[in-house]
């Protein structure tokens, strides 16, 4: 059985009298250590999928079995624990705490985990060992995003979820981030899911899940994904 098994996942929002179907009958599976890109245009429902996978939202129907547990059946408390121990998030806008240094931002996450990685080590791992005492405002966007990745990694999660991690970065910095993610995935055998609307990025993935209008449009398995540096931007 695959590490992640998503079956017939649907999410509908009730907006007054109108029912909006954000996603409908989505099914896919992801193996442990895979780097998956979920690709789709704006409003296709990919963020909804990510939110559900990340335990930030509950599906209307369907099941999401992660490492043998169906998180679709989790209550809020269990979801919080799930986020706390199993998930690492990387956001488009980093969402660092501005009043904490890079190291502290990492520690903020790691201190609540059961088996965290050493915060400073993680920072070094993302190449910011010498900037650990800097505040987010003193860091560039790419550096901030690396702190954000370090924060996610320090939790030693089962799953790394990245929502448009390069969306707010220039392409050069973006590539550095993607490279970091790919390396981490490969080196640490970390299951990583990247959500993006940028088709180019999908070239680096082991698996590409294309979503359109709330449905899985196509699932593409790439036996030999390109290294980020080899991708032609």
């Amino acid at each position, binding site marked *: 059985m695959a590490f992640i098994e998503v079956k017939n996942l649907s999410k509908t929002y009730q907006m007054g009298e109108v029912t909006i179907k954000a996603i409908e009958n989505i099914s896919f599976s992801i193996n442990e250590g895979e780097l998956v890109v979920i690709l789709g245009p704006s409003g296709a429902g990919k963020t909804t999928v990510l939110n559900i996978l990340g335990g930030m939202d509950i599906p209307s129907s369907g099941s999401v079995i992660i490492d043998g547990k169906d998180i679709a059946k989790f209550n809020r408390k269990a979801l919080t624990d799930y*986020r706390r121990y199993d998930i690492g998030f990387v956001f488009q806008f980093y969402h660092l705490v501005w009043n904490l240094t890079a190291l502290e931002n990492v520690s903020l996450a790691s201190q*609540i985990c059961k088996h965290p990685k050493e915060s400073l080590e993680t920072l070094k791992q993302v190449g910011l060992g010498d900037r650990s005492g800097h505040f987010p405002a003193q860091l560039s966007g790419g550096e901030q995003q690396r702190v954000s990745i370090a924060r996610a990694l320090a939790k030693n999660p089962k799953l790394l979820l990245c929502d*448009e991690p390069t969306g707010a970065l220039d392409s050069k910095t973006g590539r550095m981030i993607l490279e970091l993610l790919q390396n981490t995935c490969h080196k640490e055998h970390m299951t990583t899911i990247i959500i993006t609307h940028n088709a180019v990025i999908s070239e680096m993935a082991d698996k590409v899940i294309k979503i359109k209008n709330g449905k899985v449009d196509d699932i593409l398995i790439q036996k030999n994904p390109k290294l980020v540096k080899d991708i032609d931007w």
Partner: protein
Amino acid sequence: MLLFKNSFIKIRKSLGRFFSLIFIVALGSAFFAGVRETSSDMIKTADAYYDEYHLMDFRIVSTMGLTDDDILSLEELENVEKVVPGYSFETVVNGEASKIYGYLEDINKAKLVEGRYLENENEILVEKGTYHLGDTITLESDALDYVKNTTYTVVGIVESPMYIYENKGISTVSDGKLDTYMYILPSNFTLEVYTEVYLTAKDSISKTAYQSDYADTISKLNAELTELKPIRETARYEEILAEAMKEIYDAEEKLQEEKSVNDQKFAEAQKEILDNEAKLKNGWAQYNNGKNSLSSTKDSMEQMFKEKEQEISNGEKTIFSGLETFGITILDVPLTIETLNGQIAQLQAMLSMLSPDSEEYIKLDSQIKTLQASVNSLNELTVAYQTLQNGKLELANGKKEWEDEYNKALSTLNSSYQQLLDGEKELASGKASYEENYATYQQEILKEEQEIADAREEVANLEKPVWYLFDREDNSGYTTFYDSATKVDSIAAVFPLFFVLVAFLMGMNTMTRMIEEERGEIGLFISLGYSKAKIILSYLFYVLIATVIGLIIGLNIGYFVVPLIIYRVYVSMFLLPDLQLYFNFGVSILIILVCFGAMGIVTFLAVNRNFKYMPANLLRPEAPKMGKKVFLEKIRFLWKRLSFTWKVTVRNLFRYKKRIVMTLIGISGCTALLLTGFGIQDSIGSLMNKQFGEIEDYDAIIFLNDEVHEVNNDIDEVLAQNAISSSVYLNMESFKFSVENKNVDIYLMAFEDDVIIDDFIHLRDSDGNSISLSDNGVVISEKTARMLGVSLGDTFGIRNSDNELFVLKVSQISKNYVNHYVYMNESYYAQVFGEKTYNAIMTTMDEEKTQEIGDALLKIDYFSNIQYTTDSMNMFQDIIRSLNDIVFLILGFSTFLAITVLYNLTTINISERTREIATLKVLGFHNNEVSAYVYRETLVLTIFGVLIGLGLGVLLNQFVMTVAETDEILFVKYIYPMSYLYTFLIMTLFTVVVQFITYFILKRINMIDSLKSVE
């Protein structure tokens, strides 16, 4: 228009914020308006009461009374409105010092509470709370010096604007404290002069009492009165002088007249005595003459009688010898004669038979002849004897006659002798009584002459009568009320200012945050081409709606609720009508302007700040504030020890400096208010414990009916019989001293010499050392010394109710918290006042049975009145109870303020940091961890705020207590440790409550929405 619609929608969407704005405005304006208005309402209420019952502006009392001439000249004054003469006197009724007034219709009227006003001379009006309708009041007979009746029936229960305070001032009777007052019809009074006259000044009724224009108005009359005073004093002096001189002249004239009449009388009497003496002498001479002539007459008579008796006896002898010849006794004579005559007849018969010539015849004849001769001689002898016998009878008669005559003369003589003796006695006693009368008379004359001389001297020494001019300020109730009312004002000055400051800061905070949150919307409006003015207006509209609603609520509470609460405290001390509530438009407009201005400026500044950005910038969220190292990190050893979460907390604390300041001000302010509230309670509560626990230890003061000059064994015995365990004699009197034109009552206590009074009153100096009374000075209470500004060795003056001044020297100053006392021993008292005297006994007794013992004692003639310490304590407790209302008011407002501030700050804190909180949630922080992350900051701020607040509270409490202190009270500015704890706990509780509420806000924060990318 759409913008305004938008405002309404905003209100609906942010009800919490909108209400908190309303609340802040309401709270600030209510407290400000309410506390400020209270004193004004109180003064207006009092003024209306004074006006309605025509409280006098001036009262004049003269040492020699006032006459109709005085009244006339007063009426002629230019600035006078009413001049009403009246009568009053003080007496003891049922052991209480009572002032009896003649009830006047025009001035100082009494407010009828029950019953009716006076109609008959035997009716009386009494003070509320003393007697009941239908009670009979019997005045002591000394009242007859003033009034006709001594027995009255209560027909009405009244209150008087003259006596609005529990403390009615001092009295000349009983314990020196006036206990109550009564009214009777003035026609009851029998005095020749008025005891006082009341005046009102022109236009004074239209002025508000206590205010400066009232003072200005009456000062005109005051000036006139001061001018008139010496004139009338002199006039009255001359009048009295003339009267007295006339009396003296009359007396002298009368004396002269009396003298001349009496002198003549005495001269006559003396002459009569002399006449009588002469008469008596005459009488004695006559008597002696009579006596002599009687005795010589008696001698000659007796001689004559003797001679006559001799003569008779001689005659008889002759007769008897003649008879002897016949050989017969006188008794035989008639028979012999008969016998002889028979013989003659026989012989004659024989003769006749015989011739004449016969011898026989011749013989016979001669015989007859002889016989005849014998008969003849016998006849002759008989006749002679008869004659002699007659003579004898005559003599006897004469003798008898003489004896009668003699006896008669003798008795006449004796009676005249007796008369003379009586006369002599009479004369002697007459003479004695004359002399006595004369001496008495002389003495009387001397006495009268002395009296006249005395009167002359008295006239020579006649003191000028003195007019005492009193105005309302001399009425302690009147001034104390003003002090109390203005005290509210002083407190009002601090508290509301504080509220307004906090409210202003809160408003600013709220609006700034609101506009920050809505900068995107502002950017949108600008980019859509709305004018700045319109945008600002839409926010102003929002704010002003909140402000208007807040003001409506706040001003209503402020003007119509708060004064009533504060006033409740005072009605317990003052007898005044219900508070009249006023809406103060001036202040309201000020409050409205301040609120509108403050809120408007805050809004304008907050909105305007955004206009400097380009709309595009505005459409993006404001960049979060940059993180910074805090100074604490430099103290590495400390910083290292902090757990990670605490590091975060500390960093966050210093991140939002404005918020720190706001929170600290808000929380410390509320804390200070709370602590002040508790502090007021503590100070007043401990005051009672200190005064009645640490200082006054006696249970009662028993007043004597008659003053004694030394310790009286009989009284001691009675006390011992009535279970009085220990007692000390003292003289207790009321005096007053003046400070800054204000008269303050002071109680004098002069104790027996050499008695340790520590069993009754613990006199302690400021270091807590025991003080004893000395012969060369007095011990005065701390507050008295402070008000007078005297220290050890200084002198100061006190006056009695007749305004006589006595100067005392301060030997010690003792701790004391309630009332003013001057303690001394009797030796010093005698030095100042002339003689030792005791009018009361201070005692301790079984505290459970004071009333019982007291009732028993009052039945004994020695005692007139008892003043229980528990009564004073109860009175105090009432005041404390009512002050609690104010404390609760402060506590209530502080609570609301504290909760509002905390809620406001926490919600703003949360709203500012929604993204951060959402991040934490995403990272898997549990709800309680998220809350703790936010609360820890609030908690730290609360603790710091509370600590600062406790410090501020101590200062604020000091200030409030200083301001609230009355002349009679020295507050112990002391806050119990428990009060600090309570304040701390209450603030903590508020914090917890607010955090509990905000927990749900935190829980509601949606991670996904909050983290949604802004594109």
